[in-house]
C-alpha cells in the first residue's frame, strides 16, 4: 500500500533541511520535530490536492503552523546572557555572540521569527517571503525591521571588544 508515494524519498532527501528550518522557527529540536510532524499530517490530509512541489507545501506549512502555534503566547522569555554564556577573551567571542543571536531569535514573536528565517536562512526576497506568508511586501519590510531592531538590542549589550556591557536584554 503506497498512499503517500514519494513522501519517503522526499523526507530522506530533504528531511534534514526541513528540520533545520523547523528548529530555527521553534528554537529547539523537540518542538521542531513536533512542528514537522504537524506539517506532514497536513500534507497527508491534502495529499491528492497537492499536485505540485510537495516540499514547498511542507515548507510553507511549517511557517504557517509556527506562526499559528505561538500566536496565543502572551509572555515571552527574556533573553538572558548568564555568566556561563559570557565570552572569555579566548577568541570565541564571535561564536558566543552568534549563539546569543540565535537564542534571541527564538524569543522573538513568531511572525518576526518566521520573517527572519525566510529572509536570512532561506535567502528569499521580500516579495518571495510575502508570498509564503500571504502578506504584503510592506509587512515583510516592517516586520524585518522590528525583528532586527530587537536583535540589535541584544548585540548592543556587547562592546566592540567582545565584552558584554550588561547582562541580559529585554525581549
Amino acid at each position, binding site marked *: 500500500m503506497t498512499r503517500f508515494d514519494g513522501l519517503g524519498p522526499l523526507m530522506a532527501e530533504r*528531511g534534514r533541511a526541513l528540520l533545520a528550518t523547523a528548529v530555527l522557527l521553534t528554537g529547539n529540536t523537540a518542538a521542531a520535530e513536533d512542528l514537522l510532524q504537524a506539517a506532514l499530517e497536513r500534507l497527508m490530509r491534502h495529499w491528492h490536492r497537492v499536485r505540485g512541489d510537495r516540499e514547498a507545501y511542507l515548507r510553507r506549512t511549517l511557517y504557517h503552523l509556527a506562526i499559528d502555534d505561538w500566536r496565543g503566547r502572551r509572555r515571552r522569555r527574556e533573553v538572558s546572557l548568564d555568566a556561563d554564556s559570557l565570552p572569555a577573551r579566548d577568541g570565541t567571542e564571535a561564536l558566543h555572540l552568534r549563539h546569543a543571536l540565535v537564542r534571541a531569535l527564538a524569543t522573538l514573536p513568531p511572525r518576526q521569527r518566521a520573517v527572519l528565517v525566510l529572509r536570512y536562512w532561506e535567502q528569499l526576497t521580500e516579495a518571495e517571503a510575502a508570498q509564503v506568508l500571504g502578506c504584503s511586501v510592506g509587512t515583510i519590510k516592517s516586520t524585518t525591521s522590528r525583528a532586527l531592531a530587537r536583535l540589535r538590542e541584544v548585540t548592543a549589550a556587547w562592546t566592540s571588544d567582545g565584552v558584554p556591557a550588561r547582562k541580559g536584554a529585554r525581549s
Partner: protein
Amino acid sequence: MNVEEELVAGMRERVAGIHTTRDVVRDATRRHRRRSALWRTGYSSGALGLAAALFALTAGHGPTTPPDEVPDPPRIALAAAVASSENLSCKLRILITSTDPPGQEPVRVVGAFDPATDTGYLVYPDRAPGDAELRLVDGVLYVGRADGRFHQLSGRYETLIWYGPAAKSLTSMRSTDADSLFQVLRDVGTVTRVSAGRYHFTATNGPMAQAGDVTLDGEGRISRVTYEWRFADEARGRPVQRVDMTMYEYGTHVTVERPVDVVPFG
C-alpha cells in the same frame, strides 16, 4: 558588526549536524490514520455526523462538559476510547431506521473496513446482490447497481461514504475532506457518562442534531453506537432517523475483491 551576517552564521552553526531523534514520518502517518479512520467508517449522513462528533471530541472542540463524578471527565474517557479504536480494522453492522414517515422497515447494512489499506465494503443483505453495494479496494471505490454490475468512481477514496451525484444538499456532510469535516464539527455538543463503559452524547452538525449512546467493549474500544438524528431546527419534533451501529472483531483482516463487471460512471 553586521547583525544580519552574524545571524546567518549563527543559524548555520545552530543547525549544523542536526538530525531527528524519532521517526517523524512514521508518527505523522500513524496520527493521520488515527484522526481520519473513524469518520471513514461512517455510513449514512447520520453516521458521519456521529463520527464527526466523536472525532471532535478527540480534537477538543465543543463546549466544556459539566462536572462529573467519575475520575476522568467523560469527554476525555470517550476520546481515549476513540483513540484506541479508530486506527484498527473492524467489522460493521448497521441498522438504519427512518422514522419520517413512521412505520418504515429498518435497513440492514453489514461490512468491514481497514483504514490502513483503504479497503472495505458495505452490503445491503436484504437487497439484490450488488445493489447499492460499496467496495473500496486500495482506495478505488466501486458502487454496485441493481443489475449486479458496478460503477468505478474516478479519483481516490479513503472512505466508504458516497451519497451519489443527486445528494447535493448534503455537500457539507458527504465530503471526505478533513477540513470540511472540521467545519461540520463546529457545533459539537456534550458528553456525559451513563454508566461504566457507556456515554451519552449530543451534537449539532450543520442542519442535523444527534443524540445517542456509545458503548465500549472490555478493552475500552467502541463496540456500539446508537443514536437518532433530526433536523436541528425541528429539535422538538420527532427524530427522522435512528441508527444502531456495531463495531466488532477489531483487527480483522479485510480483503475485498475488485468487481469483475465494471462499467464507466456517468
